């Protein structure tokens, strides 16, 4: 008995010693930079344009002219006074398959962009304006059909090799023509005829016709210039397997990147004077959403992603932002969309009436928090509703599946199905398989669509699949009836919008159907010089695609983003591959950092 008591006493003593130790271990405080700006929590849907800094800026000079004078002047025009130094703790949310920025995924661009430059960039404060990058200036000639880029001189790769126009030509030729060039080249091939490098500091882009894309394409993170002297040794694999990738960019790698960490330091020989503001960047890989959200809260990272990806659930972002008023939570309208697709090679979806009936029955708004969903978003068509080509609401209301009166739409849907059955015979609508993806929001949307289609007597049987499995069924094998996933455009331009899913040869034609009239209109609008005429043609194409109802763009969700309010020099952009992820204008508004280097 004495022994038992003694043993128990010892054990209790051990526990009582251990508990305070564990508590102490856990209470190590996170670094707490003093915020210098008042919190501005935004929980209402905002467009990208509205989310840009609101400080007054004189219209006399463009951002390109201002940044040529000095990046500090540009920042000042937007009410910012950058501080120099500090390490930025950034994050990516997907595993990188390799180190080739052109053959990888969006996270490749996000992780690697600090290494590289393009010919152009977008202004860090206004994504609609171009800014010089490796090209110090450019001229649009031959009625908009040709662009001549004049390159900075004396630029060097991080390994000391001089950068020349040959690198640019090599990069763009590789993207467009060589094996290993990416599927993303569709837009490039649509507008670019050839690339010339007449001298080491000039690049000429010969377009197939005049198009705004001839500049937009080169102001995208994807158009980063890669080192010819490294890549040409093995165009397919040299960059993929590069241990220490090099670029011309504002940051260079401190050490070979691991699967979970890209560690950058400021490039002291950067050709843009005064940039970057930061001394270093650590880009971590955090896959788990909860871990990522709490990492923002505990300042292990300073934002939820470098360009908004559709990963962060609204409710989680809201709960994190509630914990600290200095964490900004914003929803950005980006070029991402949720689609709803029917395989037109499989009956009954080969019949227009069935597709239109399904389209009519789906109340798009129901997929958002205004209806049954958990996401914020805007109802739209194939043209980004936040952009200049957006189909006007009054025209959208005329489309099949977009009318404002749901009762009318349901009645019309039932008529369409009845007409189909009268001609083709009775159909068992009780077990229509619907392929959804367990990642992202696809299966949540599927449940809502399931509920909506019950109103016309259709019962969906959900078939949830992992992305790598479901995408194979939907994109390669065509082994599906109906499905829904997310998609993205790179540019707010009808060429990019329609070459993804709708034109003949579109690279993601999941519904497996072309419309000859749409192809004809596409060719007409492609190089139309009158913007109004082009817009009308684009709207006609949009109308054709949505009324054909093979592949419906149902919602353009807002992507939720968290960041600390001391992160400056960065604004949200519609494109996932925007050049803001290069972070050369990003600075930390922390009082301990100086205003000069």
């Amino acid at each position: 008995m004495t022994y038992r008591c003694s043993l128990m006493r010892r054990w209790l003593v051990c526990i009582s010693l251990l508990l305070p130790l564990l508590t102490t271990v856990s209470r190590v405080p996170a670094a707490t930079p003093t915020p210098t700006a008042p919190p501005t929590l935004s929980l209402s849907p905002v467009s990208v344009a509205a989310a840009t800094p609101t400080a007054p800026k004189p219209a006399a000079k463009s951002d390109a002219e201002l940044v040529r004078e000095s990046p500090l002047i540009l920042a000042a025009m937007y009410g910012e006074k950058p501080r120099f130094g500090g390490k930025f703790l950034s994050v990516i949310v997907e595993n990188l398959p390799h180190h080739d920025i052109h053959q990888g995924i969006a996270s490749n661009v996000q992780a690697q962009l600090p290494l590289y430059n393009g010919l152009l960039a977008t202004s860090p404060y206004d994504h609609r304006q171009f800014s010089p990058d490796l090209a110090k200036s450019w001229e649009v000639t031959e009625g908009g059909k040709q662009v001549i880029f004049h390159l900075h001189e004396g630029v060097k790769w991080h390994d000391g090799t001089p950068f020349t126009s040959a690198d640019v030509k090599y990069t763009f030729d590789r993207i467009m023509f060589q094996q290993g060039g990416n599927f993303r080249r569709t837009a490039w091939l649509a507008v670019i005829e050839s690339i010339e490098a007449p001298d080491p500091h000039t690049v000429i882009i010969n377009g197939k016709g005049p198009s705004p894309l001839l500049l937009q394409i080169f102001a995208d993170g994807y158009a980063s210039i890669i080192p010819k002297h490294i890549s040409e040794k093995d165009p397919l694999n040299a960059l993929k397997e590069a241990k220490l990738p090099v670029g011309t960019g504002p940051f260079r790698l401190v050490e070979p990147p691991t699967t979970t960490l890209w560690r950058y330091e400021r490039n002291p020989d950067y050709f843009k004077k005064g940039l970057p503001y930061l001394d270093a960047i650590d880009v971590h890989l955090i896959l788990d959403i909860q871990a990522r959200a709490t990492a923002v809260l505990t300042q292990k990272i300073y934002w939820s992603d470098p360009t908004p990806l559709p990963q962060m659930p609204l409710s989680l972002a809201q709960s994190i932002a509630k914990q600290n008023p200095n964490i900004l939570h914003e929803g950005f309208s980006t070029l991402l969309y949720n689609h709803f697709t029917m395989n037109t090679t499989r009956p009954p979806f080969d019949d227009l009436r069935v597709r239109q009936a399904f389209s009519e029955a789906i109340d798009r708004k129901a997929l958002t928090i205004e209806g049954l969903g958990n996401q914020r978003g805007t109802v739209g068509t194939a043209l980004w509703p936040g952009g200049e080509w957006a189909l006007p609401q009054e025209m959208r209301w005329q489309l099949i599946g977009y009318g404002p009166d749901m009762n009318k739409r349901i009645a019309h849907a039932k008529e369409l199905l009845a007409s189909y059955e009268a001609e083709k015979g009775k159909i068992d609508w009780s077990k229509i398989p619907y392929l959804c993806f367990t990642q992202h929001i696809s299966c949540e949307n599927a449940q809502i669509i399931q509920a909506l289609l019950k109103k016309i007597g259709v019962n969906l049987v959900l078939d949830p699949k992992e992305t790598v499995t479901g995408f194979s069924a939907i994109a390669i094998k065509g082994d599906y009836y109906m499905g829904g996933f997310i998609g993205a455009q790179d540019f707010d331009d009808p060429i990019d919008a329609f070459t993804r899913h709708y034109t003949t040869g579109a690279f993601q034609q999941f519904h497996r159907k072309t419309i000859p009239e749409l192809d004809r209109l596409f060719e007409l609008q492609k190089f139309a010089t009158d913007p109004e005429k082009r817009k009308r043609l684009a709207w006609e194409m949009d109308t054709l695609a949505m009324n054909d109802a093979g592949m419906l763009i149902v919602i353009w969700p807002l992507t939720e983003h968290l960041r600390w309010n001391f992160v400056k020099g960065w604004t949200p952009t519609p494109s996932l591959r925007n050049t803001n992820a290069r972070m050369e204008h990003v600075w930390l508004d922390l009082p301990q950092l100086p205003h000069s280097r």
Partner: protein
Amino acid sequence: VRQYIVRRLLLAIPTLVGVSLLIFGIMEALPGDVAIAILGTEASSESILSLREELGLNDAWYVRYWRWVKAMATFGDLGRSLFNTKRPIKELIAQYFPVTLNLTIYAMVIAVLVGVPLGIISALRRDTWVDYISRVFSVIGLSVPVFWLGVMILLLFAFTWGWQPSILYISPFDNFWGNLQQMIWPAITLGYFQVAFIARMTRSSLLGVLFEDYVRTARAKGLSERVVVVRHTLRNAMIPVLTLGGIQFVNLLGGVVVTERVFNLSGWGTLLANGVFMRDFPLVQTMIFIFAAIVVVANLLVDISYSWLDPRIRYQ
């Protein structure tokens, strides 16, 4: 004993060959495509098909099986990952191993240091409030899923104290205190189930032995309770604990997958989970094979330890 070990090791060869075939078969049956994981969901079907060809995924199954076995058998680099910049699997495993080893050691230390005393006290104070508390604690540990516990700990600490483990792995050899700060809660998350399991096993084993004749005899001889418990009772009671504890160690490796993901630790669990999500077949096959080999070795070590614990056990 040496003969026994050699025999067991020889028997392990057909076991591991069978395991390799089974793993390969399961991975073959798994739908999905690494080419999609590499190119992303914006890829065209042409680019996916082209990459499949480049990676040799269109070859016949026996060609791919032989390629994998050859890469493993030569032991040069254990083959190459299809993801992760096609790095040698050996390199990846070596890079991720320290975190998992560190985590499992901490979890096992917690399991043994807390579980065994808890089981002993519970048995010695049977049907008292101490026993009841211990049993409730154990039942909770056995019932609570690891991922839930991990997320709750993470959210509790982040929301309450603004604390989260370091994102970067801190080696105990560089900074032991920093390593402890980083690993203690993941280890508790991982180890709680083991604590509960070992406590329950220790308690029931001890109760089974405490009333044996030889224990009564030991007490009648006038030995102190401490000597009776430690020398006469515990050693016999530990045999089933050790047997099942060895198997539980293997289960610990399963828990590692979840714990590492929740706490963003770059260990084998993360590597394996990513490999499965990305359909990185060579990596997953090799890692599962290594896990299988660990199970075989762990079982062998457990069997060998019997003879030390119970001298009556002799290997023929």
